[in-house]
């Protein structure tokens, strides 16, 4: 191996701070461009649904938000595990930076779901398995954030919330299946969306929105982790020498 790459160079907050700053625009700008495109295709190009009319268009926000709310929890738990095993401070900071975005998406998913449910099912809320597990996911996010916020020592906060995230991620499938089973015991789902072939424009809109949300998540998480680094390392020399801090 002639070319030795130092894989760990950017696992230090000092070096990652700069890298994250450079990376943010590369994710923020595409997100800013893709959101209007996705909305445009979703609201104007995609045809009216045969069964659901115009109301279905909320799914272009609802579905990406739901997917990301679940996916972010996995990423968060992954970072938490990394931080707990290798004791890398940055991983824990990334987990902390992702949590609010995950909670936001879980909330948006529930909110838009309620708005969609009213015209479709005739109720703002039904105790459907998917709705219930999304709500519990929001609770898990809030627990993570609450634990992180109530411990003053950042090292302990990181490790404690990391452990909680891992326990939560082990529990997520159990919760999901138990909720599903509980639901089938009580009553069947009111409406099931089974394999209706989606129109191409709908697929495009959905995909664009998903990518946009994804890019947004990365940009926001990176921007947030920069603030966390500054907060935690506030008393170090390299932070004091930063251009944006000095001025």
């Amino acid at each position, binding site marked *: 191996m002639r070319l030795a790459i130092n894989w760990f160079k950017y696992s230090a907050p000092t070096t990652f701070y700069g890298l994250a700053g450079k990376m943010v625009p590369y994710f923020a700008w595409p997100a800013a461009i893709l959101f209007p495109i996705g909305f445009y295709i979703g609201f104007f190009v995609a045809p009216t649904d045969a069964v659901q009319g115009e109301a279905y268009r909320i799914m272009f926000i609802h579905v990406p938000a739901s997917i990301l709310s679940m996916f972010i929890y996995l990423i968060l738990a992954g970072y938490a595990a990394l931080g707990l095993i290798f004791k890398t401070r940055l991983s824990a900071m990334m987990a902390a930076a992702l949590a609010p975005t995950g909670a936001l998406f879980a909330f948006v998913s529930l909110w838009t779901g309620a708005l969609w449910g009213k015209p479709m099912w005739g109720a703002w809320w039904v105790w459907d398995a998917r709705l219930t597990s999304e709500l519990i996911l929001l609770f898990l996010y809030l627990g993570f954030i609450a634990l992180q916020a109530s411990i003053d020592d950042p090292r302990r906060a990181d490790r*404690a919330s990391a452990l909680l995230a891992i326990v939560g991620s082990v*529990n997520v499938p159990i919760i999901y299946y138990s909720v599903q089973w509980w639901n089938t015991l009580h009553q069947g789902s009111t409406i099931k969306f089974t394999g209706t072939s989606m129109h191409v424009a709908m697929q495009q809109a959905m995909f664009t929105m998903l990518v946009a949300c994804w890019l947004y998540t990365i940009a926001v998480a990176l921007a947030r982790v920069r603030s966390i680094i500054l907060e935690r390392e506030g008393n170090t020399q390299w932070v004091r020498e930063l251009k944006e801090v000095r001025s």
Partner: protein
Amino acid sequence: MKRLSLFGLLALVIRRDLLLAMRRRADVLTTLIFFVMVVSLFPLGVGPEPEMLRKMASGVLWVAALLASMLSLSRMFAADHQDGTLEQMMLAPQSLTMMVLGKIVAHWMLSGLPLVLIAPVLGLQFDMSAGAVGVLVIALLLGTPVLSMIGAIGAALTLGLRGGGVLVSLLVLPLCIPVLIFGAGAVEAVNSGMPATSNLSLLAAFLLFALVFTPFVAAQALRISME
């Protein structure tokens, strides 16, 4: 120093915790009284129709048990943390996981078991059938230890934090949902004429799964909190 076997250690910790609790009996009774009160509030809130009460009995009893066990969680490690016993336990050459398991078992015997024993009486208040009461007791017997075990992780993580009591509920309650679902589901199954065995088997599976992992995880959480 006398070397203790793992189970000797377990028995020692359980005995010690029970002895300590017996010296301060009021704490144990408070949880029990809380449980009885919460359950008794429901008929006052929703009305005394036996039809409806019978239907909600299992859910009410389970939710009340969940809340009662949350209430006593903050006590699991707090006293030992305050007087420094916990530190000594962690320094001891014996397995911390086993000691945590001992504390969990003692916690369950003090906060879970009394609920299980009083549950049939409350079940009768809700006009439950004898079969349903029997299943309820078995389900509580299988489920309440799991609540203590998952709760131990939360209690260990929030050790010594301000507002620890509320925080621990926030962390632990979502994780306890499967137990609630299958615990209440078992009674529901009996009421609708189905066998409760599948629900009870799943509860037993949770119990075994939690028995293997949670003492270790709670011990790790204690190490994080005590650094």
